[in-house]
């Protein structure tokens, strides 16, 4: 008799999901599936609203990474106005994104995932959480809480509130960085650095020991990786162009523009999940499986560009890079955790450089114009991967069509493959007809999903092909250039 075991809900992730394990006649794992069970339909109800509202509305897609939507909406807005934000505004937006990645990664590591490996896979499920960590190791928990607070506080200092600020706007940002804010950041940076150093030390020790098993079987498989890179292939979180590499470290596609996303990204629907299955179009479905997010960003880049982060990147590759790629590419999904810590270092160093930059305090922070284009695509690197916003508007700037490609969704194929691999590894013996699967084993399957730190409120959105026309118009409305793709 075949049997299905359901894990419902998957906990310590952001959003609503279930996992099913499918046993065959002999009680062996035949398949495992990750189901996302929520859908809100933003693409539909944004229609008819002014594009300037999009930042406010789409931020409400996700309370963990509202900044990603704010930035993608603002960047799409820049293109609709056909303006370049002033240099100081671009730097301030970058600081906002670095702070967000820092807080979101701290949340993923300390609050959501570390209880599994710091308290133990077998520990009491009622205690295996951030409150359990607070009881077991108050100093570490406090440091983690304060690291997330650092990121959140920078968001508030810039945008006026921690969650759902409306600070980035088409053309730039609303307010400059104050001298007091700059001072606060400078004062708190050393503590934040000390905390991530502590976390890295702790994590590497575990990786040398008990976590080797997880590293080997939590979603370790070849795939493509996608992310933004800056000039020279540098690690990038907001500007830049899209790069795909494969597991051998070869560049599969480079310098792709977000404007053309529909030519290389497709999305499939399966009946058993509200989360669609994006794939790299040239390789078809499901062979076009690719991964995004911290692991992918570290894999696609040549270097990060700041000293400590580059040293950590080198060590990350040396520890976990595959032989096939000459140590260049890390293919285990478990390494997302390590990659997040490396990225926190990158964010802290990036913020440090920006607060030291006096030009941040100078000049204009917002370019103003009226509507100059009817269609645009904006991109940003969310904590979980590359995020696309695509809007079409009418002459009054009212939205006629929206498409959002959300970071987490792009890991859907990989998340499904990961749960199958873990289930087969840890539930290797046949399960008798009446028998229960022990909770710690089920928790390991869930933990495979936690590696990806999925953001499911975000991810159940549509993506796909829309005919695309981008027009560049001068201030008086004259058409300067146009580009069209059907």
């Amino acid at each position, binding site marked *: 008799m075949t049997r299905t075991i359901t894990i419902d*809900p998957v*906990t310590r992730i952001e959003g609503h999901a279930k996992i099913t394990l499918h046993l065959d006649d002999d009680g062996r794992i035949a398949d495992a599936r990750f189901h996302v*069970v929520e859908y809100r339909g933003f693409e539909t109800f944004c229609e008819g609203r002014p594009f300037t509202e999009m930042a406010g509305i789409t931020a409400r897609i996700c309370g963990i990474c509202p900044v990603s939507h704010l930035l993608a909406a603002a960047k799409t807005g820049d293109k609709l106005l056909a303006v370049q934000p002033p240099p100081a505004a671009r730097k301030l937006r970058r600081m906002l994104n670095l702070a967000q990645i820092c807080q979101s990664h701290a949340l993923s590591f300390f609050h959501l995932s570390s209880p599994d490996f710091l308290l133990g896979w077998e520990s009491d499920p009622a205690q295996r959480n*951030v409150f359990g960590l607070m009881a077991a190791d108050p100093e570490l928990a406090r440091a983690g809480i*304060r690291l997330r*607070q650092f990121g959140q506080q920078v968001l508030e200092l810039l945008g006026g509130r921690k969650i759902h600020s409306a600070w980035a706007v088409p053309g730039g940002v609303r307010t400059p960085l104050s001298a007091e804010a700059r001072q606060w950041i400078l004062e708190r940076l050393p503590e934040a650095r000390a905390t991530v150093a502590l976390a890295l030390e702790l994590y590497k020790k575990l990786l040398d020991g008990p976590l080797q098993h997880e590293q080997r079987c939590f979603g370790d498989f070849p795939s493509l990786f996608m992310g933004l890179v800056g000039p020279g292939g540098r690690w990038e979180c907001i500007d830049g162009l899209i790069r795909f590499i494969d597991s051998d470290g070869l560049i599969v596609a480079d310098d792709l523009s977000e404007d053309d996303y529909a030519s290389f990204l497709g999305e499939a629907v399966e009946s*058993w999940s509200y989360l*669609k299955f994006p794939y790299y179009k040239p390789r078809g479905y499901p062979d076009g499986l690719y991964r995004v997010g911290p692991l992918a960003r570290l894999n696609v880049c040549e270097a990060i560009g700041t000293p400590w982060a580059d040293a950590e990147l080198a060590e990350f590759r040396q520890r976990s890079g595959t032989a096939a790629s000459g140590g260049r590419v890390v293919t285990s999904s478990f390494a997302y955790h390590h990659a997040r810590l490396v990225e926190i270092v990158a964010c802290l160093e990036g913020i440090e450089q920006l607060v030291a930059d006096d030009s941040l305090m100078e000049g204009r922070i917002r370019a103003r114009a009226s509507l100059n284009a009817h269609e645009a695509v904006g991109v940003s690197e969310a904590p979980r991967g590359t995020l696309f916003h695509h809007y079409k508007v009418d002459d009054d700037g009212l939205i006629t069509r929206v498409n959002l490609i959300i970071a987490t969704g792009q890991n859907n194929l990989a998340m499904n493959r990961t749960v199958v691999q873990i289930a087969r590894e840890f539930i290797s013996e046949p399960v008798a007809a009446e028998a229960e699967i022990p909770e710690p084993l089920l928790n390991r399957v869930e933990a495979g999903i936690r590696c990806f730190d999925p953001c499911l409120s975000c991810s159940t959105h549509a993506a*796909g092909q829309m005919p695309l026309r981008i027009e560049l118009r001068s201030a008086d409305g004259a058409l300067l250039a146009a580009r069209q793709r059907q």
Partner: protein
Amino acid sequence: MTAPKLRFATVWLAGCSGCHMSFLDLDEWLFELAKHVDIVFSPVASDIKTYPEQVDVCLVEGAVANADNLDLALQLRQRTRLVISFGDCAVTGNVPALRNLWAEVDGGSRQSVLDRGYLELADRGAQHPHAPGIVPELLERVLPLHEVIPVDLFLPGCPPSAERIRACLEPLLRGERPELTGPDLLRFG
């Protein structure tokens, strides 16, 4: 003599998790909270899968948008002494309820959003996701929590700030009922 700890739960329905993030923005005050409560159910801070019996206080984020949300709302009401509508989505329906504007168009709101998401904007396998017992049906209208179950307290905000959450929780920890009045505690958005 120390008072017994409150049995404390948090739940998310159709929201963005921003209210839960604001709860985590209580930062180090969470240590204080932990002295007074046991977290018996929470998507961000517990691996317990079934909503337990005899919960004292539950913060409910999000609107009621699908069959799973509805089931959980009914269940938690039966098992909880004090239910708090936590944030604008729970209080008014907020952003998720924008979909209700499509209730009057042909086919209604459910079909409109599913068609757009899974038929028009799909490259392969276009279909409405449908897996009984796994993928919950969307309700035709997204409802605020109090249209589904009686609610004891309303804590608005999108999200309510950590200060506001604390102002609501502190009296509860003392065994008092919070007085939520004035713009600092009651403003939407």
